[in-house]
């Protein structure tokens, strides 16, 4: 029995630019839907009584309400509905892995074919709004309370936005000269053009949030200074502590860290980097790692050099944590893969890398995650010639502030917080990747919003009346209200 249109209006998962052309520059891979395509795709939505897509979205974006409004051509209403819980709509539309445990993975149409292309519809609405500016969400009466947020990444920005809407005065401290955190300097422009992020950061600032750039808390300004000036402080300093490979030759010229590499390439804008390149990558490049960052480093290196780029991963493709849709993009562009191999030593000549000795690996017993552990196979080492190696083997939480102020830590020096997002220091809260480890933009935002809700309850002495943002959404966005069209006033915080 076919109940629904099983296929998307366009190719699955979304239309893409020609790989032969796109791999030569940093232009966007994903191609937008036209107005007609967005409306037709939105109309595939069943407007479920139990919208599992919203449950699966960490910020509980009103997907059902958006689809219904877009299908009717009412983009204003669609924007208002989704802007309510997400101040980075254009960003998350482009860089959320929607099919990997998020909205599209959960959509009930997946049982009968392809899920609704929620990300593409969201992208259409966000892009439409850039051309047809809509009012900002409402802000409650000033409370007289002041909050400092450390870090202008997705977690800090989302928290700042919600706190501001509750009527608090918010100042964000950022050690770089740009806002957006890893979304600014980590996510390559071919997935997230900088102007999309910049526009949304500017809109957040226009709500009355001050961002003080080039200030590192713990260096120029101390946590104690902040506690003197503000009623509460939120630490949202992300991940930064790079994992090192302690093997022979790690200090050779030509062995680079992927996170430093991506930051150096993107932080001042790709055009600036191309004018003043810093890395000597050569033509044969090896990237070590199996996650999305390895793919980003490889595809960035390919675009900068037009060389031969090979990703080396110690397990098989089946165990790779990278998003398979991004893997497909990389393969289409000509990135090579070598599975079941791991570096044993980096070999140099005149202090410059010339090759890597690799272990051949095999899969052994499952580890704690249930994935089979890689083990070296004796006597089967081999050499790979190369000009440079980029290591993308993971980043741990940024431990600087925890160490500087002796704050309680969790796994891998993450910032410990209790269920109220409180750290071990009075009036200091924590959120985002510095607490959870490397996650996703949208998950960091959701964490930031939950922390903001807790801070608001703390500042207003309402802690005993705590209500999670999910419960709030669940109560306010019932199917009955949706059908009556009864929830379309100005969005409450």
């Amino acid at each position, binding site marked *: *029995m076919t*109940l629904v249109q099983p296929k998307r209006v366009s190719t699955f998962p979304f239309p893409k630019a020609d790989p032969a052309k796109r791999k030569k520059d940093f232009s966007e891979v994903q191609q937008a839907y036209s107005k007609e395509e967005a409306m037709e795709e939105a109309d595939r939505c*069943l407007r*479920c*009584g*139990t919208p*599992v897509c919203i*449950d*699966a979205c960490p910020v*509980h974006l009103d997907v059902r309400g958006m689809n219904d409004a877009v299908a009717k051509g009412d983009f204003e209403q669609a924007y208002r509905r989704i802007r309510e819980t997400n101040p980075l709509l254009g960003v998350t539309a482009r860089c959320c892995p929607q*099919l*990997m*445990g998020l909205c599209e*993975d*959960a959509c*009930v*149409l*997946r*049982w*009968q*074919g*392809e*899920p609704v292309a929620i990300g593409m519809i969201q992208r259409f609405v966000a892009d439409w709004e850039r051309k047809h500016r809509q009012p900002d969400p409402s802000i409650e009466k000033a409370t007289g309370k002041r909050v400092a947020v450390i870090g202008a990444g997705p977690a800090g920005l989302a928290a700042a936005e919600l706190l501001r809407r509750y009527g608090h005065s918010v100042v964000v401290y950022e050690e770089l000269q740009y806002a957006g955190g890893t979304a600014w300097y980590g996510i390559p422009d071919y997935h997230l053009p900088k102007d999309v992020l910049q526009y949304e950061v500017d809109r957040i600032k226009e709500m009355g949030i001050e961002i003080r750039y080039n200030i590192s808390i713990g260096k120029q300004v101390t946590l104690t200074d902040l506690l003197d000036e503000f009623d509460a402080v939120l630490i949202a300093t992300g991940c930064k502590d790079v994992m090192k490979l302690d093997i022979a030759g790690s200090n050779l010229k030509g062995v680079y860290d992927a996170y430093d590499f991506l930051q150096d390439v993107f932080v001042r804008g790709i055009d600036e980097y191309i004018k003043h390149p810093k890395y000597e990558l050569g033509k044969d490049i090896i990237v070590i790692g199996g996650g999305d960052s390895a793919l980003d480093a490889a595809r960035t290196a390919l675009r900068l050099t037009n060389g031969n780029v090979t990703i080396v991963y110690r397990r098989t*493709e*089946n*165990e*790779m*944590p990278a*998003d*398979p*849709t991004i*893997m*497909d993009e990389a393969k289409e562009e000509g990135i090579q893969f070598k599975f079941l191999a791991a570096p044993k030593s980096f070999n140099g000549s005149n202090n410059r890398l010339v090759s890597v000795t690799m272990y051949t690996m095999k899969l052994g017993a*499952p*580890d*704690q*995650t*249930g*994935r*089979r552990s890689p083990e070296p196979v004796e006597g089967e080492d081999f050499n790979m010639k190369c000009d440079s190696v980029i290591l993308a083997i993971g980043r741990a939480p940024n431990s600087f502030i925890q160490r500087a102020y002796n704050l309680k830590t*969790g*796994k891998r020096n*993450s910032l410990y*917080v209790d269920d109220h997002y409180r750290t071990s220091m009075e009036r200091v809260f924590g959120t985002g990747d510095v*607490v*959870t*480890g490397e*996650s996703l933009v949208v*998950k960091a935002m959701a964490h930031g919003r939950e922390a903001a809700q807790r801070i608001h309850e703390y500042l207003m002495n309402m802690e005993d009346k705590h209500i*999670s943002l*999910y*419960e709030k959404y*669940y109560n306010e966005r019932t199917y009955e209200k949706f059908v009556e069209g009864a929830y379309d006033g100005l969005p409450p915080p």
Partner: protein
Amino acid sequence: MVVEYTVKRTGGPGEAVIFLNDREVAKLSKEDDQVTLISRDGERWNISRRVEGELRPFSMQVKHGEKSVLTIKDNLFKHKGKFYLFMGIPEGKPMREILLGRRFICRLDNFPFNEHHEIDHETRSRIRRFRGPAVGELDGLGKAGHKVKLEDELKDIGLQISACSYLIYSAG
């Protein structure tokens, strides 16, 4: 898989009938926010989205009287001392294979926690990195019939698992 349940929507999302190998064995009925699972012989279980005092996505608590029979929290549940993951990725299967269609319940054999409350922020945020053998298969939208196939080890809570699987993932 040794048992196969089919849940078919009859009215609103909380109203359905459940078949075990084509024989009707139970129904779901909803009043206000309360869903009740009622077997053919009149046994009743209350199903709530409130887990540990909070409404949570991908979470459900099934109670028989005062006794909790099944607690699913953020897709994870524990049964006879082992953790299981709804929407899991079976060990050895490529992720691309599960982008569309069937979903799986996986047993997390080496899961490093004993209780729900011990699971840290990082593990919850990266739960899809965990793999294990598939001991359940889920397929189909409730309107057309949501199928839940289970291995022997989940048979004794099969009815409750099928009801929750339908209510959480496939009610539409």
